[in-house]
C-alpha cells in the first residue's frame, strides 16, 4: 500500500441504512488533507452520511476509508485524536456561554482546566466573538452561535475539521464573515465542509466533490470540473419565444426555467450580437460552479432514467 499520510482516501464506501435507503454507493475519494475540500450536493444527496462515516460517528456498510493512514472503520480511536466535528444542525447548548462551551469541549479532549481556559480566551479573540464570550447562548444571534461552535472545535488540537453545512440558514453578512474565518483557518487546518451553496464552494474550496443520490459524480479543482463541461461560456435568455440556433454548444433549461446556451466564448459573442440586434433580453458569463453542478447532476439523473440527452 502506498504512503497514505497527508491524504484522505475512500475506497468504494457504501452505506445502506436499516430502513433500506441506499445513502452512499461506491464513493471513491483520494485528496490531500490540505486546505478546504467542499462536498456539494442537494438535500438528501448523502453529504451528512459521508461526513458521519469519516468522522467515526456512523458505520459504513461497505468499503474502507483512511485519513492520514488511520483506518476510520477499524481504528476510530486513532482518527479521533486529530479530527473535530461540527455536526449538521448542532447547536450551542442553550444553558452555556461560548466560553463555557469551549472549556467543556476542551476538557472532553483531555485538556487540563487551566489550559482549557487559556485556550478558550485565545480562540474567542481569533474568531472575533470576544465580547460575547460570557453571554448565555440563548441571547446570541444565529451567526454568533455558529461562530462559537466553530471556535469550539477550532480551540482543540485537532488538525482536521469537519463542518457539515456550517453556513446554512445564516444571513449573507454572517456568511461572508464565516467565509473569511474559514479562509484564515485553512492555512493550518484541513477543512472538510459540506454545503449546498455553490458560491461558497466556489469561493473557499481548493477541491470540490459533487455528490448526487449517494454517488460521487466528480471531484477536482474548480478548473478541473470546468474542464468536464465542454463549453465554458453561458448565455441565459429571458424570452422563451426567441428562436436561436447555436452553431456549437447545447441548449439547456436552467433552474429558473429560462433557456441557457452553453457554448464557447467565440460562439457566445456571436449569439450575443444576434440577440442584441433582435432586442432579446439575455445575460452572458463564464460558466459558474452552479452551472457545472447543474450540468453534471442533470446528466447523472438522465443516465439514471435512461432519458435521451437532448441538449
Amino acid at each position: 500500500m502506498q504512503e497514505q499520510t497527508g491524504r484522505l482516501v475512500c475506497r468504494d464506501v457504501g452505506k445502506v441504512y436499516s430502513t433500506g435507503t441506499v445513502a452512499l454507493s461506491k464513493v471513491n475519494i483520494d485528496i490531500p488533507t490540505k486546505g478546504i475540500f467542499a462536498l456539494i450536493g442537494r438535500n438528501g444527496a448523502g453529504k451528512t452520511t459521508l461526513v458521519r462515516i469519516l468522522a467515526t460517528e456512523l458505520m459504513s456498510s461497505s468499503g474502507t476509508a483512511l485519513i492520514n493512514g488511520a483506518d476510520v472503520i477499524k481504528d476510530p480511536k486513532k482518527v479521533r485524536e486529530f479530527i473535530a466535528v461540527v455536526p449538521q444542525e448542532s447547536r450551542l447548548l442553550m444553558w452555556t456561554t461560548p466560553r463555557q462551551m469551549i472549556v467543556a469541549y476542551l476538557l472532553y479532549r483531555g485538556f487540563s482546566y487551566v489550559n482549557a481556559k487559556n485556550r478558550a480566551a485565545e480562540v474567542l479573540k481569533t474568531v472575533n466573538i470576544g465580547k460575547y464570550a460570557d453571554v448565555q447562548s440563548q441571547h446570541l444571534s444565529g451567526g454568533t452561535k455558529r461562530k462559537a461552535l466553530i471556535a469550539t472545535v477550532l480551540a482543540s488540537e485537532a488538525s482536521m475539521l469537519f463542518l457539515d453545512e456550517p453556513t446554512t440558514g445564516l444571513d449573507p453578512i454572517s456568511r461572508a464573515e464565516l467565509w473569511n474565518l474559514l479562509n484564515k483557518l485553512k492555512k493550518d487546518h484541513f477543512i472538510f465542509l459540506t454545503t449546498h451553496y455553490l458560491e461558497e464552494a466556489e469561493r473557499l474550496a481548493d477541491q470540490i466533490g459533487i455528490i448526487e443520490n449517494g454517488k460521487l459524480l466528480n471531484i477536482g479543482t474548480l478548473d478541473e470540473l470546468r474542464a468536464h463541461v465542454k463549453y465554458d461560456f453561458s448565455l441565459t435568455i429571458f424570452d422563451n419565444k426567441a428562436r436561436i440556433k447555436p452553431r456549437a454548444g447545447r441548449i439547456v433549461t436552467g433552474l429558473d426555467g429560462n433557456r441557457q446556451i452553453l457554448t464557447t466564448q467565440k460562439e457566445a459573442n456571436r449569439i450575443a450580437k444576434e440577440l442584441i440586434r433582435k432586442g432579446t433580453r439575455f445575460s452572458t458569463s463564464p460558466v459558474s460552479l452552479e452551472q457545472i453542478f447543474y450540468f453534471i447532476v442533470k446528466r447523472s439523473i438522465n443516465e439514471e432514467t435512461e432519458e435521451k440527452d437532448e441538449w
Partner: protein
Amino acid sequence: MKGRSIGSQLFASVLINAIYPMQNFPIMLVNSLLGPFAFLIVINFVSHGALLGVAIEGAFVMTMVSSGLALQGDLAHLKNDMKFQDMIVSSPTSAFIYIFGMAASELLYFLPNFILLSILLILFVPLTSLAAFTVVTVMVIMFIFSISLSFLLSTISVDVIQSWAFTGLVSTLLSTIPPVYYPITYIPLPWQYIAYISPTTYAAQIAQAAAGFITITPLNFALDWIVLVGASIAMVLIAIKKVRWREP
C-alpha cells in the same frame, strides 16, 4: 497529545450537565431540592405522622431512582436536539467516560436534596450502623439500575417526545407502582403482585426491614437481595451490550 486526562473528561460532563445549567438556570436547583419532597409531605399528613420514617427512607430511594432516570432525558436531549453527542463521539472521550461523567452530574444535581434528606433521616429515623450501610447500598444499587436503564433508552430514542414517553412509563414502573413510601402490606393483595414487577419494591422492602419498619423472614430478606442485585446486574450487562456510541 499524550496523556489525556480522564479526570478532565469526567469533569466536562459534570460541567455540561450539572454545574453550567444550575449556574445559568438557578430554578433547576430549587426543583432538584424540592422535587422528591412532595410525596413525603403528603404521606406524612395522610398517615398523621405514623409513616414519616418510612417515607423519608422512601424519598431517599426515590431520589436515587429519579436522578438515574433524569439521565435518560438529558442524554437524549444532548444527542437528538443538540447533536452534542456526535461532537463527543468523534473526540477522544470514550462512551464509558461520557456516561460515567453524566451519571456523576445527576448525583451532583441532586446533592442538595441528599443533604436535606440525610438531615431528616438522622433526626427522625434511628438507624444502626449496619442498617445505615444497608440503606446506602440499596440506594447505590438502585442508582446503577436506573442509570443503565436510562442509558439504554436514550440510545433508542430519536426524539424528545419519544423520550418523554419513555420517562413517563419507566417512572410509573419504578416509582409509582412500588410501595416506596409505605409498606407493601398497604396494597390490597392482587395488586401486590404487580408491585413485585418493579425492582424498586425489593429495594424499598430491604430498606424498610433494615430500619425495623417491617419484619420479614430471613429467607424473604435474602430473596429481595437476590432479585435486586440480579436485576441490576442484568440491566448493566444489557446496557453494555447495547451501547451504541458509533451508530451502526
